């Protein structure tokens, strides 16, 4: 797997594109630009002498955890939101996934959700999917689902997984609460352009084989290869035949975890799938405008000869089902591998991190991944809670049952609409028959801000995005996997190769 030397600029090779694009020819004098260049250039309002720019923000997604202090800041300074229609808000982190009609029992969680309810009213935000709205869900699921995330947009949210929206050729990234306030007050952000990183994933992922790597396996393999800081300072464009072959849901999964590779933004060029996905969605351009919009969107790809600061290549045909074994997403291996031995690591900082991780995880070096037993299974999160994820997991579980050592297996759909769709397809029945619980939408046990948590020492196969210490509950042990690998682990009671089950 070749990789360019960092800092050694590499031109974009058009041969990588698997399908012809009907893109307008650029005038010969125009410098070829990357997708990131195009998105950046289109949003610059003002540039300072040191290169810092004021960039315009088209879509501001808001949730209850990172917004209260921002609304308070506006109020204290007597400021108003600049453009209310740019805001789409929901409550997702603190909401219960069972017994929602009874309200939130934890008083601190309840106050945070009620504070968002109040701020929405006070500031006059029109687009709010509150806890009991049928369209409520994880902010990164509902944005695209509603067509509120569009190609060519800048999309921000006080949440690092905002990179998800880059799947639509949007420049999307997470911001802190001061920046949430800044965007509300000015519709702009102060930012400096990142370097560009092209991650090209090639390989036949259809091709008559029974199993193909899922989007989750691909992105975990990328993180395993470049590390959790590999993308720091970069905006990543994911390209290549294996990315083209992914559905929009799959591309969202890949872009979602760009931040786990250190990059604030990940993105994928527009193609027919992008446009077909968006047509007819509530917030997408109406029919009368849609053709004009989609003609513009088709220009949103890297030009032939565009120069990236760095290029990484991955062959998808060699990617096995991935399972993380440590406390950082880069600590990942294929299902057939053994947990690595820190003693063989030469870098002392890395070795110490591995030792600490294995101690926290309660795993001995050299343990086959497939012998690691689990207690709980969580299918959900902004990484893997879309309809396609639920179909994939249900496909593995149909006619099977969770192992007796599993104390809890739960599915938390990404939104109310995903839940309804899954129920229309009978997926809920498959999960329930297999011994899973079928919950209401929210962030849930990805980070356990509601009641869905691991207890100390409990081990979980999770389709979420972070396996940090204590992420799913103090002392909890998280292994990141794809939805179908989570289903396979639920059946076996330990990690198992889904290829043997399918």
């Amino acid at each position: 797997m070749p990789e360019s030397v960092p800092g050694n600029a590499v031109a974009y090779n058009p041969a990588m594109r698997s399908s012809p694009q009907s893109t307008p020819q650029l005038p010969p004098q125009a410098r070829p630009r990357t997708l990131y260049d195009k998105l950046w250039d289109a949003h610059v309002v003002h540039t300072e002498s040191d290169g810092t720019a004021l960039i315009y923000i088209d879509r501001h997604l808001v949730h209850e955890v990172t917004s209260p202090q921002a609304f308070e800041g506006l109020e204290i300074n007597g400021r108003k939101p600049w453009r209310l229609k740019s805001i789409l808000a929901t409550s997702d982190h603190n909401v219960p996934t069972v017994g929602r009609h009874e309200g939130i029992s934890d008083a601190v969680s309840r106050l945070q959700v009620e504070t968002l309810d109040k701020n929405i009213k006070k500031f006059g935000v029109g687009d709010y999917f509150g806890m009991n709205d049928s369209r409520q869900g994880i902010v990164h699921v509902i944005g695209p689902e509603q067509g509120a995330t569009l190609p060519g947009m800048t999309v921000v949210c006080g949440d690092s997984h905002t990179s998800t929206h880059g799947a639509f050729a949007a420049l999307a990234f997470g911001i802190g609460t001061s920046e949430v306030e800044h965007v509300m007050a000015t519709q702009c952000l102060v930012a400096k352009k990142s370097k560009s990183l092209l991650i090209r994933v090639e390989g036949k992922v259809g091709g008559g084989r029974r199993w193909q790597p899922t989007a989750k396996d691909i992105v975990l393999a990328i993180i395993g290869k470049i590390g959790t800081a590999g993308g720091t300072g970069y905006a990543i464009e994911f390209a290549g035949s294996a990315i083209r072959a992914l559905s929009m849901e799959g591309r969202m999964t890949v872009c979602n975890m760009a931040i786990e590779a250190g990059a604030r933004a990940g993105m994928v060029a527009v193609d027919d799938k992008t446009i077909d996905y968006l047509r007819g969605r509530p917030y997408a351009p109406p029919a009368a405008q849609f053709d004009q919009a989609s003609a513009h969107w088709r220009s949103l790809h890297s030009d032939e000869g565009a120069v990236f600061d760095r290029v990484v290549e991955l062959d998808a045909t060699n990617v096995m089902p991935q399972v993380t074994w440590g406390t950082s997403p880069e600590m990942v291996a294929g299902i057939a591998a053994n947990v690595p031995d820190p003693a063989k690591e030469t870098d002392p900082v890395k070795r110490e991190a591995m030792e600490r991780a294995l101690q926290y995880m309660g795993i001995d070096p050299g343990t086959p991944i497939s012998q690691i037993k689990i207690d709980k299974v969580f299918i959900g999160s902004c990484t893997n809670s879309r309809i396609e994820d639920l179909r994939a997991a249900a496909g593995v579980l149909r006619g099977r049952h969770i192992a007796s050592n599993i104390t809890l297996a739960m599915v938390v759909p990404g939104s109310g609409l995903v839940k309804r769709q899954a129920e229309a397809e009978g997926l809920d029945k498959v999960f329930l028959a297999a011994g899973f619980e079928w919950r209401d939408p929210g962030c849930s046990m990805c980070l356990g801000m509601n009641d869905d948590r691991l207890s100390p020492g409990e081990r979980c196969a999770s389709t979420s995005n972070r396996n940090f210490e204590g992420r799913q509950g103090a002392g909890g042990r998280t292994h990141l996997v794809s939805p179908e690998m989570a289903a396979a682990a639920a059946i076996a009671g330990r990690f198992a190769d889904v290829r043997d089950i399918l």
Partner: protein
Amino acid sequence: MEPFRVHTGLMVPLDRANVDTDAIIPKQFLKSIKRTGFGENAFDEWRYMDHGEPGVDNSKRALNPNFALNQPRYKGATILLARKNFGCGSSREHAPWALQQFGFRAIIAPSFADIFYNNCFKNGLLPIVLSELQVDHLFNVVMATSGLRLTIDLERQLVEVPGGEVYQFEVDDSRKQSLLNGWDEIGLTLRHVDKIRAYEQSRAIREPWIFPEQRG
């Protein structure tokens, strides 16, 4: 925001790579709707022997004696020395809030996660990138020297070890000026109101679907 010009203070080493924002401030404390009160729970899982929750009296909780921040020699530290990729993970600004409210004014590391790095500047907390070698050296010095106090001069972009090395660091000029002066960034941006309005007008012609509120 409190300006940052020259700061001299005690340095504490945190010898771990990839310290994430979940570790800096665990999720249960993010439920607060305030901007203050996070300092007591900075590094909660590592700092205390028991599990912390909001509303608990932290003065009654047992401290983990092995955690560097709890050791008497580092009491009152205002400079945190860390390893690479510090602040990775979530975008929660509660992480810099917690560090700043704990008493830190600056963090030195070989690299920082992008969002965290950005968030620090909004809160008068200066993140300083030095090379791996320089950071290694500082770890050696701080372990060997009791009460090591560094001086950080933002105007001159220098880290000074007493009687020893002087390291130059990089920082964007606009971030530097904001921090030196404690400027309100929103106020600065609002100087460009006319440019923002003009941008919106031209954009609405090119991509009218971005502004549905202007549809007739």
